[in-house]
């Protein structure tokens, strides 16, 4: 031993440094939610798996985890859908085409899209939870013949909170998938269903013994969804969900995202339900 200091590998690239991207297009989705298309300033495609996220930086303001919501089959443009809830998301929202944003990623685990081949796939989304599921929907629809029924159950608070409205309409018009929507509270001319998303799950449309479910939304909504899926015969080993915790680094260094023994940034955000079942029902983990 030359010295007692360990030979810690010096990384090829510094994982703390953001890569610069150019804002190409910004689309307002809802009053507080927008979708942004960005491309790397240094060129090249951006490959990712559905369910993964990036850390997005606004100059001098901060950095936040945001899921990738675009098509993994179109890696030339990176797509994020963000809801403005605080200072960093507001600063990102203020960026215009031609401006620069910092990106670190992609990070985290992914929806096991390939492993679900041969099975029915049930998507259960709540609110902005549809954004992290959309890449999986794109990938499956691009490889449609390898899957059984594809069912989307989407719940939002009001009709005004429905994300990707045009796309939902297109999906509803397709014969090779089923898209069902429900709102907590009907407003305006809403003629659709009213209630919670679990109501849609109970309606079925999938082979309970072989369906795989991908669930994303607020934690309470996921709790009920998992329970209802279980009652409908979709057991915990076929249910995947995306957890949300505070994140400051996405590298396993800052400790903020810990969920029991795991780091949501590295072991998650997508977990197989039976792997976290024990903690999922404990208070304030």
């Amino acid at each position: 031993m030359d010295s007692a200091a360990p030979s810690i590998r010096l990384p090829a690239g510094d994982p703390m440094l953001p890569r610069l991207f150019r804002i190409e297009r910004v689309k307002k989705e809802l009053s507080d939610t927008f979708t942004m298309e960005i491309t790397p300033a240094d060129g090249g495609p951006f490959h990712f798996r559905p369910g993964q996220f990036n850390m997005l930086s606004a100059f001098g303001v901060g950095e936040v985890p945001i899921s990738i919501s675009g098509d993994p089959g179109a890696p030339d443009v990176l797509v994020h859908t963000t809801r403005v809830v605080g200072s960093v998301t507001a600063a990102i929202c203020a960026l215009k085409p031609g401006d620069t944003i910092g990106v670190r990623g992609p990070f985290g685990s992914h929806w096991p899209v390939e492993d679900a081949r041969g099975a029915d796939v049930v998507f259960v989304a709540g609110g902005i939870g549809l954004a992290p599921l959309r890449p999986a929907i794109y990938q499956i629809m691009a490889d449609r013949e390898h899957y059984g029924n594809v069912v989307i159950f989407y719940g939002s608070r009001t009709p005004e909170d429905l994300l990707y409205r045009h796309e939902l309409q297109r999906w509803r018009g397709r014969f090779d998938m089923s898209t069902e929507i429900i709102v907590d509270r009907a407003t305006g001319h809403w003629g659709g269903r009213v209630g919670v998303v679990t109501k849609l799950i109970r309606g079925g449309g999938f082979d309970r013994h072989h369906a795989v479910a991908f669930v994303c939304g607020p934690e309470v909504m996921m709790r009920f969804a998992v329970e209802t899926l279980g009652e409908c015969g979709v057991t915990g080993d076929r249910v995947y969900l995306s957890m949300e915790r505070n994140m400051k680094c996405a590298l396993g260094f800052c400790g903020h995202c810990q969920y029991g023994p795991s780091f949501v940034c590295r072991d998650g955000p997508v977990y197989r339900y039976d792997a976290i079942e024990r903690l999922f029902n404990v208070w304030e983990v």
Partner: protein
Amino acid sequence: MVEPDRKDPPIMAIDRDGLDALIQCLAHDGYQVIGPRVENSAVVLGPVAGVADLPKGWTDEQAGGHYRLVADGRGEDGALFGFTLAAQGWKRYLHPPRTRLWQAHREGRSWRVEAEDAAPRYAFLGVRACELSAIHVLDRVFDNGQFTDPGYAKRRGGTFIVAVNCGRAAATCFCASMATGPKAEAGFDLALTELSDSASARFVVEVGSRAGAAVLTGIPHGPATAADIAAAERAVANATAQMQRAAGGREMVDDAAGVLSRNVEHPQWDKVAARCLGCGNCTAVCPTCFCTSMEDTTDLSGDVAERWRRWDSCFTLDFSYIHGGSVRRATASRYRQWITHKLSYWHEQFGTSGCVGCGRCITWCPVGIDITEEARTLAESEGRT
């Protein structure tokens, strides 16, 4: 050509002048020498220029919520390392309370990002066995198999370590039951044992690396006598004996990891929360607590942005904040997170305990909450059912 390491490097001895020469020699080699010194009635770590800066003649009295320096009453012959632990550990040098990660300059509508690359070269003098273990714990945290923290890697890679074995345990120490001390077994460049019972004030020196051997050749030293070596062994045995619970010392319960993982739901969480102030002192003094937050700043012109990383604590409400509210609102869930992470989850994350038994969290807790007692209470409640 790589020379094979000799299996058992000969054990050497130095006197106080030799130690002084060691400090000078390290400084001459370009190291910033950090060691224990007395400031504000406590032993703290800071730059040391020679033996005169060390806490000669001081021992510490530690207990739950209690710390006091006491003169050892030996005047000029007083021990240099008669205290156990400095109030804060080496973490503040390897993983500083605040570090700048990068700086960015606005250039038109784009920016240019510059990494931080200056790293000091430290020589640590007086690293205790438990602290050496804590450094190895941090090594795993910041090189986790997927990502490496370049700042930590640079600071750590350049560090020269002079360990000092313990001849005395404080009432808060429990390294023996964590298998992390009181003798430094590996991971040092040089390891000293102070022979404070000998009038000639000598140190037995073990060499742990080539760098250590090279430094030693530059300072006055001689072979340790059989009597020196026996005295060094006695000193360490004394510290071990003082930690035995049967003799009034402190021990961590067996299988603390299992105990914590089995008791996520337990009435004790509310009981400890009734006492815990949520101040986060325990996390600040713990040599392995690594959690941080980020702060982005801009200069007045708004054209230069910086990202800073600073220590954070799982005891704050903000720590677990997500839109809609914090996940861990109750002090009970925050204390549970801390102790369960230390003693149980850490094994799954890093293959080692997150607690090295230094006892600092006990000493510096204003209300004297004791990690060993909390684990024992849970363990004993299992026995009762």
